[in-house]
């Protein structure tokens, strides 16, 4: 049984349809990249999967109907890492990561909670600044803190909204490699919305391609990222090269029949 199975998921903000009939599934230990142009519904999809939004359709987590689970149950299984735009809350890094224990905490903080926080910090290589203030971190540090919080949450499914968009080159590949390692070693399932196709191709097992709220394609990066797909989804002429088995997309120019016409 897959860890996550999504069937016929649709969502509308008031009268605007954002997602239409989205279906896919996800196994343990798998990194799934969600790619697509701006406004294609990537963020909304992640929010629906964590039931921050309530979609129509059938979402099953370990075979259980997500809409029948309590908030706390969901929080113990799924961790959501929002796009890190603004600064974090002015508390210490340790306390920020400790928030990941919220689904388990009683009023006081137990030994186990503290141990899990320390573990998450050390796994992310940020144990050194546990007592620094979270609102004074750089983009790369901030992203690591948020991922550490998700790990402290003991979730089996991580949802990340553009985890690399605010990062420099080195931090981008470090964060993606870390996600891949968590999937490979800890059998976590990861869904990440990603803009950078080449980063997605390199680190994701599979990719779901969204356009205007619909799934245009799903599969391994090498089968999905083709010149045709780039034209259909982004309206871009692109050369797709092969770099040691990983597709590498080089955008050339906007297609003549641009996306606006569609």
């Amino acid at each position, binding site marked *: 049984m897959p860890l996550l199975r999504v069937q016929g998921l649709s969502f509308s903000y008031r009268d605007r349809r954002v997602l239409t009939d989205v279906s896919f599934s996800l196994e343990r230990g798998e990194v799934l990249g969600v790619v697509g142009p701006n406004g294609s519904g990537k963020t909304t999809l992640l*929010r629906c999967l*964590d039931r*921050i939004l309530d979609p129509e359709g059938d979402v099953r987590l370990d075979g259980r109907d997500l809409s029948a689970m*309590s*908030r*706390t149950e*969901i*929080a*113990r299984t*799924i*961790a*959501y890492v*929002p796009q890190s735009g603004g600064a*974090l*809350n*002015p*508390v*210490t*890094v*340790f*306390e*920020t990561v*400790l*928030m*990941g224990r*919220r*689904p388990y*905490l009683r*009023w006081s903080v137990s030994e186990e909670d*503290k*141990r899990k*926080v*320390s*573990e998450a*910090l*050390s796994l992310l290589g940020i*144990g*050194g600044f*546990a*007592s620094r203030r979270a609102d004074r971190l750089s983009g790369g540090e901030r992203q690591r803190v948020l991922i550490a919080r998700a790990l402290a*949450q003991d979730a089996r499914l991580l949802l990340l909204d553009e985890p690399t968009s605010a990062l420099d080159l080195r931090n981008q590949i470090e964060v993606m490699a870390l996600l891949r390692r968590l999937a490979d070693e800890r059998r976590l399932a990861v869904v990440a919305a990603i803009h950078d196709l080449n980063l997605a191709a390199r680190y994701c097992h599979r990719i779901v391609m969204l356009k205007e709220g619909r799934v245009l394609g799903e599969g391994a990066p090498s089968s999905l990222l083709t010149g045709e797909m780039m034209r259909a989804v982004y309206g871009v002429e692109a050369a797709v090269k092969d770099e040691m088995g990983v597709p590498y997309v080089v955008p050339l120019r906007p297609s003549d029949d641009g996306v606006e016409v569609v």
Partner: protein
Amino acid sequence: MMTDFGRQEYARLTEKRALFIAALILILAALVGVAVTLGSANLPVADSYLAILAGLFPEAVDLPDRMVESNAVGIVWGWRLHRVLFAIVAGFGLAIAGTVMQGVLRNPLASPFTLGIASAASCGASVAIILGAGFLSGYLVIGNAFLFAMLAAGAIYGMARLKGMGSETMILAGIALMYLFSAVTSFLQYLGTSEKVQEVVFWMFGSLDKSSWPKLGLVTVVVVAVVPLLLWRAWDLNALAEGDETAKSLGVPVERSMAGFMLAASLVTAVIICFTGTIGFIGLVAPHITRMVIGADHRTLIPASGLVGAVILLGADCLARTVIPGAIIPVGIMTAFLGIPFFVYLFMRRRDA
């Protein structure tokens, strides 16, 4: 050991928080000791304390004649003690209300004052004083102030409900209400006779002159009922501070808890300021001061900022009663004179660091 990252620092932080709270309790106790000896009646310090004991254990304490003559027991119990305790409870409650509002709305400017609740109370009091219209005859001013304050809170909640429960919506709704109620108050003052207007103005200064045992009892009951609830849900406040989405993904029912927190904070504010007039400043500053010292974990931030608020209000009232002999400066003015320079000092120092 690998799994020790940050744990020592966290233990130290926890210790620091406990120490801060203990220190505040000591300061507050010392302040109470001073406050009960202050007053226009010029009782000797020892007599004041003896009077307290005499009130508690009438049989056990032998009153000297001079104290019977000076009616020391009557003065201390009838005038001073409830005022001192009222300052503590009111300062505690206002500070906690501000802490909760800032936490829920993730905005350092949120307070009962900036959200229009205080100006709604002023407006209600003005209606009672100038038009003589109101809801609780006999307690017209108090009843109106309370009702208008809760009305404002309800209106903020209603608007937020319609427009989506965002913190920005609530703050904008609060600011809009603040201007609306201020305008109505001004209009009433324009209509009123000069004596009535003066009464309104004096009400709006905020003071503890009208404190009494029954009022103290009522306010205490509300504060004592609400504070444990807030403490119990302190983790939800911590999660909300991380953002609505994050809070939701951590299992917090965001809309429901936001509404609950705002209601609790508004209730505490309303029940206090309907008796005191607007003492708006404490709700803004006490949480800030506390957060700067011990950080933003609401489990300790709530009680600690409550104590800071109590210290500020009681300290301000002591000064207000003594700084000009024979006159009592309204404590609302005094808190601002005292607290704002201190606040600015802390703020500037922090920016340097």
